[in-house]
Every structure is written in structure tokens, then in C-alpha cells.
């Protein structure tokens, strides 16, 4: 088991109090597994991705543990995390494209970055990895502005995985790309895992359709908690949690027409995480909710590797 997360809680400090962005999430990430982390805005998936790498000034590790390859990660200790960051656990951030210094050629930027970490990489290896994601070595001589969005994203992916981390977190890497570039980027990510350069991956996204093509299993989050986690095929064809069901039901597929069958979304919005309501957080919007839901449902494994947090599903 590459990564084990146990009851992780991360809160944000704000003027009005603490926002419980991540309120007790636990899951396992097996060796070689790509886990898709899906959910809508405010569900905590980005917080989860970020907290595994670096807690920024406003975030506070409020509880729970994260174990990487058997070792517990010192999440609250920024300095101690330095040893793990980039070496063992790495991140491809959402707007990677804007993260490249526009005044530096790519090759120079990479060298400077590695030198600051006390690592040197030989050029042959770098070229090999660029080829793996479909980029030619000439990219190193170019400025970021000469590359397309997809190319920049892939460049950042190469940089983030140079030290063969155990876990790579890809945070919404395809959101800012055109559809035609998305396939290439997703293929590149899969290639990294297949070639063993990265042991496991967490793919954070709001696009369920896209995730289903790269992830081995998908974890759906809602309001800071886990709603459902299952192997991809199972989740997309036989979801058990009402939220997952309604979410999939609200995705128009190419060919679905309003005239023939109008789809419907989920009325309302997620609860405020400043003072989350007691009980199931999806209660207010769930068509199946009843008095039992006033008590928070535990995460239950209803089938092998299929966990759901819902009284109705268990």
C-alpha cells in the first residue's frame, strides 16, 4: 500500500472562524493505482491534494494521519516535509502553465530548480522522459510562450516526476486545456505510471467523464467527506450513493438531447463548512433523505473495494 490516509482533517483559518474543508477522510492508495478524486467546488478534493504536499499559511492540520510507504508524513511540519516533497510525493498544480518563468528557457529553469534542491539530472535521462510524454528535446531550448498549453502542462509533469516519486498528485491538470490537448496529457500521465516512473497517482478533477478514462478507482467527495469510492467501472455503472447517482445523471453525453429527455441537476448548493450541519451533509438535497440521515452515516464497505457513506446504500 503506497499511501494510507486515516481520518484526515484539515481546517482553514478565516476571519469568521475555521472552515472544516476536510473533515475526516480516509482511504488507501495501492501500488500502481491511479485514484480519481472527483467532486464539485467546496468538496475538499483540492484541499486534500494540497495538504499532502504543503499546508499553506491558512491551513491547519487538525487531525488524522497520512502514511507513505509505511512512514507517517509530518504534515504540519513544513521543514520536515521538505525531505518528502518532490522526492517522494510530488504535485502537478492546476495552473502549471502559468508557473513557468516566462523569462527563462525551459532547460535552464529545470537546471536551476534541481540545483536549488541539491539534485542533478543527466540530460539523457531528461530527454528520455520528455520523449515519454511526447515532447522533443528541442523543448528545452524554448521559452514558455512558444509552447502550447498542453505542452507546458506536460513539461511541468516531467519536472514534477524527475525524482521518481511514489505518489504524484495531478491537480486539475486538464481543466485549462482544450479538448484536443486533454487526450495527450492524460495519455502522458498514464504512461508515467505504466513505465514505473511514478508508483501511484491521485488525479483530482471535477470532470467525471475524463476521470473514468484514466483512473482505476474513483473517490467521490462531498462537503469535506467521502461519499463513495469504488473501482471505475463499478462507480460509473452501479453507483450506490445518491449524490454520485445524481451527479452522473446530470452529465449530458454527446447525443443526449433536451427534447428527448431533459436531464436535471441537483438543486441547492453544498452546506457551509464553517459550521457544518450534523448528520449526513447531503441531506438537504437528497431525494432519499429521512430521519435516519440526521445521524452521520459511517463509511461502509458494501462490496470488495467499494465503500459508501450512506444509510440507504449499506
Amino acid at each position, binding site marked *: 500500500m503506497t499511501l494510507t490516509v486515516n481520518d484526515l482533517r484539515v481546517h482553514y483559518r478565516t476571519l469568521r472562524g475555521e472552515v472544516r474543508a476536510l473533515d475526516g477522510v480516509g482511504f488507501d492508495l495501492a501500488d500502481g493505482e491511479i485514484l480519481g478524486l472527483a467532486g464539485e467546488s467546496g468538496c475538499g478534493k483540492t484541499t486534500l491534494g494540497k495538504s499532502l504536499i504543503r499546508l499553506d499559511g491558512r491551513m491547519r492540520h487538525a487531525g488524522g494521519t497520512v502514511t507513505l510507504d509505511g512512514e507517517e508524513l509530518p504534515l504540519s511540519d513544513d521543514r520536515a516535509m521538505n525531505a518528502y516533497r518532490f522526492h517522494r510525493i510530488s504535485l502537478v498544480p492546476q495552473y502549471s502553465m502559468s508557473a513557468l518563468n516566462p523569462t527563462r528557457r525551459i532547460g535552464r529553469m529545470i537546471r536551476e530548480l534541481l540545483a536549488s534542491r541539491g539534485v542533478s539530472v543527466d540530460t539523457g535521462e531528461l530527454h528520455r522522459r520528455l520523449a515519454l510524454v511526447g515532447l522533443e528535446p528541442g523543448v528545452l531550448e524554448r521559452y514558455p510562450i512558444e509552447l502550447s498549453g498542453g505542452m507546458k502542462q506536460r513539461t511541468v509533469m516531467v519536472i514534477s516526476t524527475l525524482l521518481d516519486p511514489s505518489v504524484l498528485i495531478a491537480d486539475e491538470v486538464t481543466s485549462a486545456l482544450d479538448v484536443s490537448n486533454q487526450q495527450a496529457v492524460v495519455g502522458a500521465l498514464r504512461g508515467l505510471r505504466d513505465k514505473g516512473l511514478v508508483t501511484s497517482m491521485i488525479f483530482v478533477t471535477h470532470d467525471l467523464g475524463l476521470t473514468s478514462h484514466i483512473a482505476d478507482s474513483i473517490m467521490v467527495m462531498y462537503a469535506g467527506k467521502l461519499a463513495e469510492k469504488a473501482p471505475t467501472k463499478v462507480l460509473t455503472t452501479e453507483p450506490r450513493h445518491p449524490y454520485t447517482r445524481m451527479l452522473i445523471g446530470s452529465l449530458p453525453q454527446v*447525443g443526449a438531447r*433536451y427534447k428527448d429527455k431533459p436531464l436535471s441537476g441537483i438543486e441547492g448548493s453544498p452546506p457551509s463548512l464553517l459550521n457544518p450541519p450534523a448528520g449526513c451533509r447531503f441531506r438537504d438535497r437528497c431525494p432519499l433523505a429521512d430521519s435516519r440521515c440526521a445521524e452521520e452515516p459511517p463509511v461502509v464497505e458494501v462490496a470488495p473495494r467499494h465503500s459508501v457513506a450512506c444509510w440507504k446504500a449499506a
Partner: protein
Amino acid sequence: MLTLDRVTKTFRAGAFGGGSTTAVDRVSFSAAPGELVSLIGESGSGKSTIGRMVLGLTRASSGSLTLDGEQVRPGKDFYRRVQGVFQDPFSCYNPVFKADRVFALVRRAYHPGVPDQEWAGRVEKAVRDVRLDPGQVLGRYPHQLSGGQLQRLLIARALLLDLRFLVADEITSMLDASTRIDVLNLLAGLKERGLGVLYITHDLSLGTYLAERTVVLRGGRVVERGDTQKVFGNPLHPYTRTLLAAVPRLNQPWTSAEPVEACAYHEGGARDTDLYETEPDHFVACAGLPDCGRTSA
């Protein structure tokens, strides 16, 4: 209702306008009342520029845009009948004022004589029309509302005028999947009232969900357009095929597009027109194959 005829837009670039880029190149299409036309293209295709030209926010370099026979011209009269809703709901609201201010602006410009009581009634009705609860959304600041609520308020604002045509520029891209469909259903409702809608998007599945007709744009040019089912049921242009294949679908394999064998435009013998009508209401441009033009009858 809305007709674009060979509309072109070039931007000057460089100091004192030395160079130029063509954002929109001889685009023509039309939208009838009660019809939703989706304008599909990726970034840089010129679709937003077209939206802005239809709204009169940008002037076309050449070609004509007409609404009900009259030239598109920015001004109070025009905006009584044509309105727009944009991509970023939070950017559309001035953050230092409350969200209702957008209604107040409309009142000031178009209905200044309306008494307070009656105006409040109209606003409430418009808000209910977009399936929002007035008690929940009125009197709040933009940052206190969600993206979906803000977008719907913008549609409500448009309803307070004598709207005939709405330009919806990527209004759902920044919304969550679960709210997107509700906003789209609203657009469908507008359609059924006889409004025309130009729905600009990069997302094929959303475009095909609602639109009677589709225009596929690439690099400022129309590559294919026509009845939605014909265009996506039988895509002829290689770009349309690539686009269709590149959409990741749930529970379906993600393949690449089949290459186009022959250019439908030149096969049909088209010469001077921009697009060739291969079947009723299905137009396609030249496929840009290496041997295009040499295999025509």
C-alpha cells in the same frame, strides 16, 4: 432573426498598429426565433469575438450583422432586445456592490418611470422565473452567492427587458456539473418562449444537448455547420471528427478520429462559396487535405 454575413474581424497588433491578426474570417450563419444555435470552438477560435460583435461590444471589420433586418448597433434601443451573459459569474458583478444592482441599472436605463412597488414585483417574478428564491438571493453581495445563482440572476436581468435574443458566452464553464444542467434547462425554457439564443461553448456535449443548429469554428473560420444531428451524426470535416472523438465519454472508449478520406467540399464541386451544402442544412468547408482541389469532378 440574427444573420451574420461574411463577418470578419481583424485586430491591429504592435505599436501604432503595424501587424494584424484575423480573429474572425468571413463567418456566416443565422439563428431563427425560438432557435438555439450553438457556436462550438476551442480557445482562439474566435467564438467570443463573434459573441461580442453580436452584442455590439466590438465592431466588425467587414461583413454585416443584422437582427430582424436592422444592423447591429450598440445603444439603449438595441440592448432592450439583445442581451448577453458571460463566462465568469463573479467577474460580471461589481464586487463592491450588492448583486441586485444589476437590476437597478436596468431600471435606471429602461424603466425609469416604474413605481418602486411595481418594479419590486417585476424583479421578484423574474427571479422566480429562473427558479431562484427571491428571499435567498436578493440583498446579497456577489461573494455570498454561488456561481450558479449569479448566472441565473443575470438571466433574470435579461428577462426584465423585452428580450428577443440572448448571447450566452460560455456561461456554464465555470459552474459545477450539477448546476450546469439547470442553467441549460433555463435556456431551453427561454427558447420555448420564442427567444433566440446563441450558445457559445467549447463543450460539445452541452452544445448538442440544447441546440437545433450548430456552427463549428476553428481559427476564426466556420468548418462545418447545420442541423445538430446531421453535423454530429455524420461529421464530414476532419476537425469536427477530431473534436467529437476527443470528448471523453462515460462508459465509452476514448478513440481517435477516423481520418477523412476525401474532401466533401471539393467532391461536391464547390468553387467560390465558403461552405458547401452536402445535404439540406448541412454545410462543410474544405477539409484542407494535401490534394484538395485536384480531385473535383
